[in-house]
């Protein structure tokens, strides 16, 4: 039973972590375009800030897995 709960929790976390991961991937694309001067530099900076914020979200989700 405990094993099943753990498995469910892991599956939920894997699902939840995909959103910030997806945001990281897409913000990285925006940052790349900004670096190539295809988008304003300010937009690139905002995306890099968003990447850092989404990384923290990922970290918190992972940390929650090992905390009781």
């Amino acid at each position, binding site marked *: 039973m405990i094993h099943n709960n753990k498995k469910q929790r892991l599956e939920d976390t894997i699902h939840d972590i995909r959103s910030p991961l*997806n945001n990281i*991937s897409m913000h990285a*694309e925006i940052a790349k375009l900004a670096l190539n001067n295809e988008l304003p530099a300010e937009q690139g900076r905002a995306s890099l800030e968003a990447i850092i914020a989404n990384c923290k979200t990922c970290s918190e989700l992972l940390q929650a897995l090992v905390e009781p």
Partner: protein
Amino acid sequence: MLTVLLVDDDPEFTHIACLLLEHMDCDVKVASTLAEARKWLSSLTFDHILIDFMLPDGSGMHVVDEITAISSPPKVTFITGHPAIKSIIADLCDDNTNYLVKPIDKDSLSRVLGNNNNNVAACENAINKHFGSLVGETEAMQHLYQQIERVANTKANVMIFGESGVGKELVAQAIHNQSSASGAFVATNCGAIAKDLISSELFGHEKGAFTGAISRKIGVFEQANNGTLFLDELTEMPLEQQPSLLRVLESKKLTRVGGTQSISVNCRVISATNKPVDDIATDNVLREDIYFRLAVFPLTVPPLRQRKQDIQLLADAFIHEYNIENATKYAISDKQIRLLQEYDWPGNVRELRHVLYRAAIMSDPYDHTLLLPMQIGSPFSKTTQNGGTIEAGRTIDDVEKELIYATLSKVSGNKTAAASMLGISTKTLYNRLHAYGDFEDEGA
């Protein structure tokens, strides 16, 4: 300009996706619920709908049902972050319906928007054929490409070594394609010519030279003049026939059988054998002088088991070829590729091609899913497999992965039994599978 309706309840995602789509010259409208999407659809027409599979007020599937009533319905791409849902959506896909799995990048967005209706063409562009004939990007193949490039610019004779089915003729063709030769590429199989006809095949004959010689025949050496002559299975040529070949190679002149005139020939000779280089002398299949004349530049084509990372590219290329020939739309999954990579391929690329063609023939053409045989193998595979597959140059991680998958296959996927057989805990086995990216397939 493409008009796109983006339906997703995650505002951060829709904001970034809008930026990317607008940069790709799309006119984008955003909805966060099914109700909002319906409103847009009732007032505007769209070329494409990008829609989350799970929305707060229902499944994106409803939209597909509703838009079928529209005279020219937009194409639909489902967006999902859940691998279990991915397989359900994959079953629904057709010319008008596609799916994207998060995390999404610009290329995947561009692919579904630009080539939704033309996956076959997209696939063709993605397959990179080196020198117009060779597929593969592994280190072993890169080394081979470098050698081909170097030798192609010279006039040196080349001898190609490699197991049966590795593609020696394609390598010969690649050298010819890359060279500046003005003549043709002519291939002949020394093992397939009757002993008495070898001279006639190589050098040609005059009318009446022997019984049955009813007209003049031009031999392969003359046909390949100013080009490339490929002598496959050279070591199958009888030893007593080899001196006449040597004479032509040294003098660059030949006389047709039954003729008297000496004819100059100028061609590069590329020969091939499936015998290991060490066996050539010990088995007494090739004269030493012929070897040194032909193997000015020896080249070895690696067997498929030493470049398993290329199996994905090769499989894609073969399936694409089959799809073009038969107007089908088969695709191969990542899981099937892993299955193919577990096998040792004693018949090399030729065997892989035949397995995929056989699978395509056996599959349901309306399903688009390739049906691989339950067990891949040939009458020749056992003897080779028993010889062991561990080769120097592979990493411990690679060998460990192969052992884990082989054990799982042996116990029909039972992880407890596999862990016990491997002498590790079930937890460690799960950790390894997770690291290989196999955990998602377990229904996570």
